[in-house]
């Protein structure tokens, strides 16, 4: 008589099943939680060198209104101002910046590269 769970082949099948299920769960978790690489551009509205955090004002493409996102700028983040290497302390409020970074599942942002473009005033602008 082959009772369920007592047969060796059944135990082996159960193990394989749970192994596959575990791998599937891990893979799903990885895909859900893995950071998403994003690029945004906007106006710098806050820079805090002490905590290495900055806030960028971005225009919502749907409504055209402004909203802000704050992220961390780790020491290894590449910072360029007009294509010249620069430091976090060199970034000014009002600068236009393009930021590439990772967006994590908890909505935290870590910048990988910040490129600041210091525009000249348009003609006729007071």
């Amino acid at each position, binding site marked *: 008589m082959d009772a369920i769970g007592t047969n060796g082949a059944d135990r082996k099948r159960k193990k394989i099943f749970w192994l596959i299920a575990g791998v599937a769960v891990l893979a799903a978790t990885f895909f859900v939680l893995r950071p998403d690489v994003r690029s945004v551009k906007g*106006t710098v*509205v*806050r*820079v*805090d*060198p*002490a*905590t290495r*955090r900055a*806030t960028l*004002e971005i*225009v*919502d493409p*749907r*409504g*055209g*209104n*402004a*909203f*802000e996102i*704050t992220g961390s700028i780790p020491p290894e983040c590449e910072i360029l101002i007009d294509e010249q290497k620069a430091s976090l302390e060199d970034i*000014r*409020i*009002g600068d236009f910046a393009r930021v590439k970074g990772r967006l994590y599942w908890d909505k935290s942002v870590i910048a990988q590269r910040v490129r600041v473009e*210091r*525009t*000249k*005033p348009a003609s006729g602008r007071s």
Partner: protein
Amino acid sequence: MQTHSDHSSADAPMPLPPKRRSLGLAVGLLIAVAAIAAALLTNRRSTPSIALTTGPMVQQVTSEGFLLTWRVAPAEPLTLRVVSANGDAIGDIRVDREQDRWSATVSGLQPETRYRYSLTRGDATQANEQPLGRGSTRTAPAAPGSFKLLAFGDSGSGDTVQYSLAKVMAAQSPDLIVHTGDLIYPDGARGDYASKFFRPYAAMLATVPFYPSVGNHDYQTEAAAPMFEEFVLPRNGPKGQTPERHYWFDYGCARFISIDTDLGLHDLQDQVAPWLDETLTAAGDLWKICFFHHPVVTNGKTYEPTFRVIQSLVPVMERRGVALVLNGHNHMYERSHPIRGGAIVPAGEGIVYVVTGAGGDELYAERTEASPLIAFHDARQHSFTVIDVAPGAMHLQQINDQGRPIDEYDLRSHGLTAPGGATAPPPPPAAVLPAEGDRSGRGERVPREARP
């Protein structure tokens, strides 16, 4: 031979004679038909073929008059009658039409006086015409009179919470209402104004002026165009900006300034801040109260303090003696300590920031770590702000959905004005911003560089 006649059976009970049964049915049927016909005829006479689709809504109340708006379908001119308490008719009424929205400007009134109004069809001679809309409103007190203000934001969910909170608000009998934005969820659409604004607040709108500011959700439909179609707001905002997007008005002993903070840093700095500076300077000794959507001081988990506002507008507000700022965006209630230069200062020497975003939509969570800048906060229940404003003192209460106060605070005369009436010296050139994670309130100094 068996017959089928009932009368021939000696065992079955005797039923009603068929003639009586038929007669009863006929009489009953006649009565029913008569009743239905009467009801239809009566209904036909009393059901109006015309009705207000929005309003009446009171707006722009001053000490000498008010403005009333409405929409009517089918669109036709209506007669507005305004009478004083002793029944005297008011003659200074000008009616305008902008597409399908009608507005009537009533002037030549006395301050702090209640007037009744009614909207009817036909000309003024048909005095017994059933009004399509009616209400009453009280003109503003002459400066520097006292009044009761009601403020709330983030309301337009259209659900039972909003409707029941609206009833509690109406019971407060305010003199005017300011809204801190997000009037209509999810995206400020025209079709949502009936169920998410006009119906829940109908009783208040017919008697009390309502001043909105633009929220990020309102902005999603044509940069809040539907809002400007519904309201008639003062057109005294900064040049280069859409009229009514920013405006100011005086009421009693206070000047109110509404700002659309959905704009970016450069627009706020270049266009709004200079206008704000002028408007606040011209306010003299009036209380200065600013209301806009995005918060300056908040500990909400969903939205941080709004740094473009901190950079562009806060220095102006501090320099010109703003006493109170009303915000929304985070769906909760928060009241800050008096703040100046990013730090807590004694009462009367700084601005008190109130987030009153618990006005009807779902509530938001707060951060687990408390902020030393926040004196009181409540994110567990819906609420709104009621302020008794008098020259020299404001008494603030935050009222919950049961009508009970959950917070009370007194603001005294602002101490920023030096003896003799001169304004206080400007704050230090570097604005101190709260650093992320630094909850001491001291923050880090971020030099405010000159723009290229």
